[in-house]
């Protein structure tokens, strides 16, 4: 049994450490710094200079285990359980569960590591320079070939970005890279992004789906629709072989892959089979039977995996924030005092103990300890039933009030969250009726505005703007707390978050996020942040990995997995 954390324990994170690790992640663009300063050598060692003050990361058995020679076996096959993608075209897919597969087949223009730090040795751009707040110049790596044999050129990058920006593509990434106004390609290896407005989050956005570059030849010959089921135009570590929906997806080594690690060509494995197992108990059985070597582990099954001799658990702390979003047009939650009251009525400490067996942390705000802008000193409401009662009464909702909430059916954690909040509210005379709706229909149902609040999680993004911008800017992509009638949130929060995204100075940006979060959780109580969710990956001891098994957004990264020799 081995239980380790891929993330430094949140309690050990200091503001300085977090900011330090983010010094590149946030990109000090004001000084027009050259972020990627690698040379032409593809075998660039990941350097610590790019992350001054970065806290040491706890070792993950596979993820961070050093990888010196003999213990790594080149070749072989393993199987892993991942979420099933619906669409394997990075430009048309939508599900957050697709990334882990897409990242194996495609590379990003700018890629970031497990601390959300953009790294030139992982990126298709070997170097990038912020020429001005509205201009970024990227130099592409030499010798990168797509799986279809075509070369990576500036023209291909331009084609991909323009495809995403074209409304006809209906890409979910369009919003993320929308600050790009035009793309220039002065030569075959240089791409200049001209922005319509400064965007501090753009570089990390290029590490997401919006920065995945696909062979133009493949996209044009197959069309967007057919590429989605047979992605043969990536440049990633593995090539697509076969996909049987609801069963598995087979990948094979890309023999021309450009990345190396410690002088060894990547990937280490010959074959990687991704299995799609919807039932957690079956996935666990497959892990126990060594039929898969890596797979997600649910909170309930952690003890079983931890006690197994040949298995270990990798933990990503703060992969999501579990929240209650309030409908600010509902009779109860129109009044900010009622929203604040609900926040004081939630016993976060008990919730963490009851639901996660104390493995998670009570939430302070929407940003989690895994994000560089996380502020451990953020003033957050804590459990205070008396204050909750007073605030409810001040808002005109005394004993006998009923709140109607909505959440996901079939998900045990939401059921338990609801039960615990119901219990706390009952003690101050408030009734909470919960409706459990099938996952795919929750948001659509909530948008009808007939519920007072909704319980939902929100997964982190590599850049804080990805989280806060989408959640708390009016008309944002996932703005659950907006007024369903007007789609508006709070103008001053909109302004703060917009300013933060246009601010390249890290210290100023962090301060803006702090103020915005304070307003979000205290003044306007747009959402009740309950606790931070972790992600757990079970791993067979027969395998290791030469990089973290998680990306900075907490999703599995399996490109550097190997079989132990």
């Amino acid at each position, binding site marked *: 049994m081995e239980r380790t954390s891929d993330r430094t324990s949140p309690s050990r994170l200091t503001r300085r450490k977090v900011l330090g690790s983010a010094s590149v992640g946030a990109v000090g663009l004001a000084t027009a710094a050259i972020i990627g300063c690698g040379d032409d050598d593809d075998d660039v060692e990941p350097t610590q200079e790019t992350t001054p003050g970065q806290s040491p990361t706890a070792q993950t058995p596979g993820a961070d285990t050093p990888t010196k020679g003999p213990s790594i076996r080149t070749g072989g096959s393993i199987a892993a359980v991942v979420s099933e993608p619906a669409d394997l075209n990075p430009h048309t897919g939508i599900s957050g569960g697709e990334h882990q597969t897409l990242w194996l087949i495609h590379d990003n223009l700018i890629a970031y590591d497990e601390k959300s730090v953009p790294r030139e040795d992982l990126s298709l751009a070997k170097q990038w320079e912020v020429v001005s707040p509205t201009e970024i110049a990227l130099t592409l790596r030499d010798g990168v070939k797509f799986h279809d044999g075509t070369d990576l050129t500036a023209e291909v990058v331009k084609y991909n970005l323009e495809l995403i920006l074209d*409304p006809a593509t209906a890409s*979910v990434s369009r*919003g993320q890279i929308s600050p790009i106004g035009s793309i220039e390609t002065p030569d075959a290896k240089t791409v200049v992004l001209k922005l319509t407005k400064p965007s501090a989050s753009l570089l990390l956005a290029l590490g997401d789906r919006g920065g995945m570059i696909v062979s133009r030849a493949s996209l044009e010959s197959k069309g967007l629709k057919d590429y989605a089921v047979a992605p043969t135009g990536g440049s990633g570590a593995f090539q697509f072989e076969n996909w049987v*929906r*609801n069963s598995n997806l087979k990948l094979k080594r890309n023999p021309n892959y450009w990345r190396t690690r410690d002088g060894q060509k990547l990937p280490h494995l010959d074959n990687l089979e991704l299995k799609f197992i919807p039932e957690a108990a079956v996935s666990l059985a*497959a892990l126990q039977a060594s039929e898969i070597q890596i797979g997600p582990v649910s909170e309930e099954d952690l003890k079983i995996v931890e006690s197994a001799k040949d298995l270990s658990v990798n933990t990503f702390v703060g992969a999501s924030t579990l929240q209650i979003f309030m409908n600010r047009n509902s009779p109860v939650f129109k009044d900010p005092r009622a929203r604040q009251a609900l926040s004081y009525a939630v016993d976060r400490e008990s919730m963490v103990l009851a639901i996660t067996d104390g493995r998670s942390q009570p939430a302070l705000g929407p940003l989690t300890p895994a994000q560089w802008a996380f502020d451990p000193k953020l003033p957050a409401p804590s459990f205070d039933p008396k204050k909750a009662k007073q605030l409810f009464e001040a808002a005109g909702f005394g004993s006998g009030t009923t709140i109607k909430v909505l959440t996901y059916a079939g998900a045990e954690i939401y059921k338990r969250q609801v039960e615990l909040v119901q219990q706390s509210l009952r003690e101050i005379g408030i009734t909470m009726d919960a409706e459990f709706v*099938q996952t*795919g229909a929750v948001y*659509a149902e909530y948008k009808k505005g007939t519920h007072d609040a909704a319980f939902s999680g929100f997964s982190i993004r590599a850049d804080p703007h990805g989280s806060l911008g989408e959640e708390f800017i009016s008309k944002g992509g996932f703005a659950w707390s907006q007024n369903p009638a007007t789609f508006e949130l709070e103008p001053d929060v909109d302004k703060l978050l917009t300013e933060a995204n246009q601010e390249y100075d890290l210290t100023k940006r962090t301060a803006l996020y702090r103020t915005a979060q304070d307003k979000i959780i205290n003044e306007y109580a747009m959402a009740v942040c309950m606790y931070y969710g972790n992600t757990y990956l079970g791993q067979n001891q027969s395998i290791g990995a030469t990089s973290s098994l998680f990306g900075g957004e907490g999703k599995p990264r399996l490109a550097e997995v190997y079989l132990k020799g």
Partner: protein
Amino acid sequence: MVTIMLFLLMSFVPGDPITARYGMDGSSLNAEQEAALRKEYGLDQPLPVQYLSWVRALITGDLGDSIQQRRSVTTILKERIPVTLQISGFALLLSVVLAAPLGVIAAVKHNSVWDRLLSGFALAGVAMPAFWLGLLLLILFSVKLSWFPVTGFTRLTTDPLEALRSSFLPALTAALGGTTAMILRQLRAALIDVMRQDYIRTARAKGVRARAVVVRHGVRNAMLPTVTVIGLATAHLLGGSVVIERVFNIPGMGRLIIDAMNARDYPVVQGVVLVITVFVVAINLVTDLTYAYLDPRIRLR
């Protein structure tokens, strides 16, 4: 009738296929694109019009395109039907192989310890949720004994031996979780009834051996109601594939319909339900024809 019911039920389910496919709030689409997609899939039309369009296309063999997978529903069904039929067929075979001798023993040893044990076994089979039974079998045979794979499916046409190995646990779960019990109980009851008939007494009086009395005169006459139950069991297996395929990670129609329901992929749901309906009707037809084969009196009539 089934298709009308289906359309009505689907209209009551909250959610929307465009939202499910293109994002929670359709953020990747502008209003015109969303409208164009709704038009493309006919979702902008009133329900009766949608239904009539679907029926019109169905007559020409067109089941439409999946909104989620963006492929023809017919193509998807062609991939999935053989998978479900393989598991269901194997499960039916196991059910009959298990239920026939056990049912005969229970009937012949009527009111004995054997009868009570077998009746208890049948009751447990009916009562036990297939999901739970499947997990128990997986833990025992796959995790502890490593006899069968936890997941994975091989087609009979690809590798018959591996196909049998990968289909055994799902088929056994489906068989033990209801259909064996259904057939066993029916065969037992019918055989007990037949064994009380005058012609059985006559056969015995004429000195026909006990085994021949049971097999040639008893079982043959008890087969008629049993065949009816086998027909019902087959329909039960097709419906049960929803659970079995999820537990054993099998890419058949059962998993397809659950995913399609979650994604509000109406054309796929309609296609799967239609196929299952056709199968059930076909099974009933085969059952009726089997009656005639087993009982010449029905043929003559």
